[in-house]
């Protein structure tokens, strides 16, 4: 019981809210599993990590109130594309558990390109002044954004 109380008081002191918690959780899952996709050798494991990474991204969309985009993400990427990808792998694989070994030269090249792109994106993201301010936390009972305008367009 005492650890529970300690945990609760820490949460209270830190201004805990579930929105922040789940944002960090989903963001960490999306990033970590994306790295896992890169560093795995087995194709199906890669696909599985990609499923989890894209699902975590869908979770971020749901968290932001963009339910339509989140459901689209699940439907198209996770449900459609990745099932076809795994299906294709299973059809074409000659031996069980094919592994893809990347030459170290390509790894270096990919690392350079990846880090450069990441740096540019990070720079662009931080150069938006509006994105630096913390967003207004919606109160309970506020109207949520809706997919209606998309349907009416």
């Amino acid at each position, binding site marked *: 019981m005492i650890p529970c109380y300690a945990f609760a008081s820490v*949460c*209270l002191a830190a201004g*805990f*809210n*579930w929105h922040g918690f789940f944002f960090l959780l989903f963001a960490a899952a999306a990033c970590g599993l994306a790295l896992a996709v890169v560093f795995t050798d*087995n194709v*199906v*494991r890669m696909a*599985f990590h990609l*499923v989890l990474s894209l*699902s975590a991204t869908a979770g971020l969309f749901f968290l932001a109130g963009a*339910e*339509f985009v*989140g*459901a*689209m993400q*699940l*439907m198209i990427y*996770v*449900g*459609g594309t*990745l*099932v*076809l990808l*795994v*299906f294709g792998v*299973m*059809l074409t694989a000659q031996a*069980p*558990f094919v592994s893809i070994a990347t030459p170290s030269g390509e790894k270096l090249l990919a690392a350079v390109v990846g880090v450069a792109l990441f740096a540019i994106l990070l720079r662009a993201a931080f150069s938006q002044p509006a994105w630096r301010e913390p967003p207004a936390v919606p109160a*309970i*009972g506020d109207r*949520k954004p*809706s*997919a*209606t305008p998309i*349907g009416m367009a």
Partner: protein
Amino acid sequence: MVEFLTHSAGFPVWLSWTVTAVTAAVLILNVMAVGALVFIWAERKIAARIQDRLGPTRTGGKFGWLQSVADGIKLLAKEDLMPDGADAMLFRIAPYVSFCASFAAFIALPFAFDVVGQRLNVGGFFVVAVLGLEVFGVILAGYASASKWSLFGAMREAAQVVSYEVPLGMCVVVPVMLSGTMDLVTIGEKQAGWFTNWYVFHDPFTFVVFWVYFTCAVASVNRAPFDLAEAESELVAGFHTEYSGLRWSFFFMAEYGSMFLVSGLASVLFLGGWNGPVPLASILGLSEGTGDTAPFVVRLIGCMNLLGKATLGVLVMMWVRWTLPRLRIDQVMTTCLKYCTPIAAVMFAGAMLWTWAAPGGLVGLFAPNRLPRLVFRPGGEIREGWIEGPGGLMASSGTRATTAIGPTGVDRVQDSAGPLVAVKRDAEPYGLEFEGVR
């Protein structure tokens, strides 16, 4: 509930969210777990009766009703085996992927008006999307088992589910088109009243669409006669050949959960959701009750209605399973691509034309006074597509309101005898809900 805990009980906001979320999750988990126990018992009894046997008779008394519990204890105690050549991580995680997909889809399924884990404005779409993820657990299980039988099962499942998503989606679009929203709560409310307001009886096209939906739903949850992934007469046990114990039972929890889910979705989309065939709550005068208990009683009746309809759907699936022989894989694909998809497409076009010509459906043509009435309740949304009956908005006292809702916005519509039925969209603190004929 969050508001109640925050404002009345004085909880901090994060704690009220926690309590609410845990309550919803535990309730949904109970629906799945207890549902699986009951349905497995029911399946054994039904199978036995259809095959002229008795089924379980001894465990727990006369009808063998404790058989599932006994099975559960046996599965818990069973050794958890894994083949030597298996991909350990994927093999272990695959049952949970199936289970989580099935569980997550329940979040958006309403059990009565506003009795829903999370009311999403794209609820119908969400359920179909998440349900499609269940196949991933099956594929991973088949692949990671390092067994030819499992792999065959998984490949069949992948081909089948990817194909059946197409007609299934087309069928789901029809009620969405009729109601003008993807919010499952609103779709259910729009079918309030007598059973003639259910979308399955809206017009001949929707009647056919319902049966196409049901066929595709049976195929997409991988039940006989479409259970090619298991096919115990050819593939030993298909994708779960190498599984035992609790992991195996997770696949079955997922399967029975999905059966219940697609039946529940069928009820909400086509069979009036939580509205019974007879508007009992309205007749008893409970819908107008504003006291503390009346809304709860109405929702309780709604829950019973929906659970009853969904259970009926599951029982029909069992009946079909033990009656029809399993299809061959080419016949499965033929059924989907040559029959279900074209029929669904033609019926979609037909329903669209019918709605354009007669927005109220069959009821609107023959008994327009039985259409669902608009009544004023806080918390809904206003759409211009929600005009019931030819020529205008139906007011709550049965007379037609003078101002129709135009495409640009909603004017204030006032009926002389009834309450306010609509307000302008710009000023919307309120919305419309639907209620049956009294």
